[in-house]
């Protein structure tokens, strides 16, 4: 083959195109980014160098967050909106500005998945708070549930994306965390429903509860369907962790099974190529060890904030993770590589769940202590959004998402 032919073959061998969808998505992100980060040249003459040195020393997401929350809305409005509930005047600011802006900072599939889970948690916390204040109506319930479904679907889509991008560990982590969060909130909703005497609110919260259960169940089925595609992973499905399970609520069990299927795919990925390699075992062992360490540190830190009655749940999950890890070490020493791999994977999942449970229950306790329902602003309330060269007053009560976004866009320009 002569030189020219070889050069031609090199071009053909590396002929790859950026998928259209990814190309458009990245372009949209960049368009938003450059709007948030205008050229500073003119400003530079107005501020001292130390002002910019400070910002330059910050990481880009921090700069973005500062711009988004401080410049666009003024810290007060954005902050006030954070504590609102569906039906409050500032609630659209929370949903369409604060959360959307935070969403643009999540650039990887994993961070997008985690942010979607965080948003799902916010909706669940809002539903609980509304029901406890007898404010959960058909309308607000519908709003919360429809957003909740979107966030859950987004988290699952990102997990799937990670899986297809060969990040099985990240995918399993997001899936396990989502199921753990949903199951933890399931018990929170159940408890809240027992304390509510108002029939309508009780019915509404039970409807949220059944929505959560349906989501857990659909995730379970979806994951099972996926797992069926992999014959190797399929065999792992029958593994059900025994000790400490009996006390768990039925929904939690179902959620855990869903997560188990997802993590079994993680193990399955290593097995696909045949025998479990020593390298695969090392990677999985390290991932599980790291996850247990992180979970232990976080749980110890959060322990004082976790209600007494929930601590045993968290402890049991972490103990099960450690026990699976120890068993994995024993199996490995005895030469059962496949069993060892499955147990490392199980340890990984249990550690993620333990940490998520601790986080949910500590937040729940904090909210119970400090978070009161934010009062509805009086009718006719309005928000003032200011920028250096423009000032706008919009009546949020009558405005939808488009109106808010248009105003912000105008200010940005």
């Amino acid at each position, binding site marked *: *083959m002569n*030189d020219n032919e*070889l*050069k031609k*073959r*090199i*071009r*053909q*061998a*590396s*002929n*790859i*195109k*950026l*998928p259209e969808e*990814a*190309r458009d998505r*990245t*372009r949209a*992100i*960049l*368009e938003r*980014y*450059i709007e948030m*980060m*205008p*050229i*500073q*040249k*003119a*400003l*530079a003459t107005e501020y001292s160098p130390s002002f910019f040195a400070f910002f330059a020393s910050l990481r*880009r997401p921090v700069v973005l967050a500062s711009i988004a929350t401080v410049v666009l809305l003024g810290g007060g409005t954005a902050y006030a909106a954070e504590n609102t509930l569906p039906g409050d005047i500032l609630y659209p600011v929370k949903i369409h500005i604060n959360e959307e802006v935070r969403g643009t900072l999540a*650039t*990887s*599939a994993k961070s997008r998945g985690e942010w979607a889970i965080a948003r799902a948690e916010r909706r669940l916390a809002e539903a609980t708070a509304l029901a406890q204040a007898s404010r959960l109506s058909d309308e607000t319930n519908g709003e919360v549930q429809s957003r909740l479904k979107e966030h859950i679907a987004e988290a699952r889509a990102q997990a799937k*994306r*990670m899986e297809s*991008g*060969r*990040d099985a560990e990240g995918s399993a982590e997001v899936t396990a965390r989502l199921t753990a969060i949903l199951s933890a909130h399931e018990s929170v909703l159940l408890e809240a429903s027992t304390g509510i005497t108002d029939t309508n609110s009780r019915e509404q919260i039970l409807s949220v509860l059944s929505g959560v259960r349906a989501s857990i169940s659909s995730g379970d089925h979806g994951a099972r369907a996926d797992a069926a595609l992999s014959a190797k992973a399929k065999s792992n499905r029958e593994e059900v962790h025994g000790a400490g399970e009996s006390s768990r609520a039925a929904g939690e069990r179902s959620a855990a099974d869903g997560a188990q299927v997802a993590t079994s795919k993680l193990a399955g990925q290593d097995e696909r190529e045949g025998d479990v390699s020593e390298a695969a075992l090392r990677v999985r062992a390290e991932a599980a060890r790291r996850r247990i360490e992180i979970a232990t540190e976080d749980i110890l830190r959060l322990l004082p904030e976790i209600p007494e009655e929930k601590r045993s749940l968290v402890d049991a999950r972490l103990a099960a993770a450690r026990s699976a890890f120890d068993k994995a070490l024993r199996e490995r020493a005895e030469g059962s590589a496949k069993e060892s791999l499955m147990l490392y994977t199980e340890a990984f999942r249990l550690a993620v769940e333990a940490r998520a449970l601790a986080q949910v229950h500590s937040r729940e306790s904090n909210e119970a202590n400090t978070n009161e329902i934010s009062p509805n602003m009086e009718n006719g309330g309005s928000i003032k959004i200011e920028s250096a060269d423009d000032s706008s007053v919009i009546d949020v009560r009558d405005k939808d998402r488009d109106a808010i976004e248009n105003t912000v866009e105008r200010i940005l320009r």
Partner: protein
Amino acid sequence: MGNSSENKDMRESFLAAYDEYANAIYRFALLKTSHPETAEDILQDTFTKTWDYCTGGKEVREWKQFLFRVAYNLIVDYYRKKKATSLDALEEEGFYATDPNPGLNAEEMAEVQRVRKAINELPDLYRDIILLRYTEGLGPKEIAEIVGLAENTVSVRIHRGMDRLRKIYEPVRPDSKTERNAYE
């Protein structure tokens, strides 16, 4: 005035650069990392970092070179954190199937695959430079600026890299082996 019209001009030329070079940067990142999602992240980071540079009032004259330099540095960072897999991994995942080389017959396709494997076996030292030279069509001077080497070194590596590639691609025939050994 100044600032808003300047902002608009810069915005337009920045987005035009994205439209023109997004594919090349993604391809380079993907060939280096073998991980579509990482390649997409590198693409995004390349452009946000470039915009950060522009916002300081600095001008980018040669977009292609500049973008490749940023992308190359990001890839080096990525390598420091995690060793990438291989071009074979992309093939196993059927990634090339989304963009086949149309019009090639089975024999030519097999040749392309052999070249792909040969590129994969090249040491990084040569691989990056060969890809920048023949896939992206950059000259030795431009490559030298991107990878931070002297132009002369780049030219030598292109030459040696092609020799290596040829050796990997065209296995030594039994009848020429003794002759070749005599030279080595």
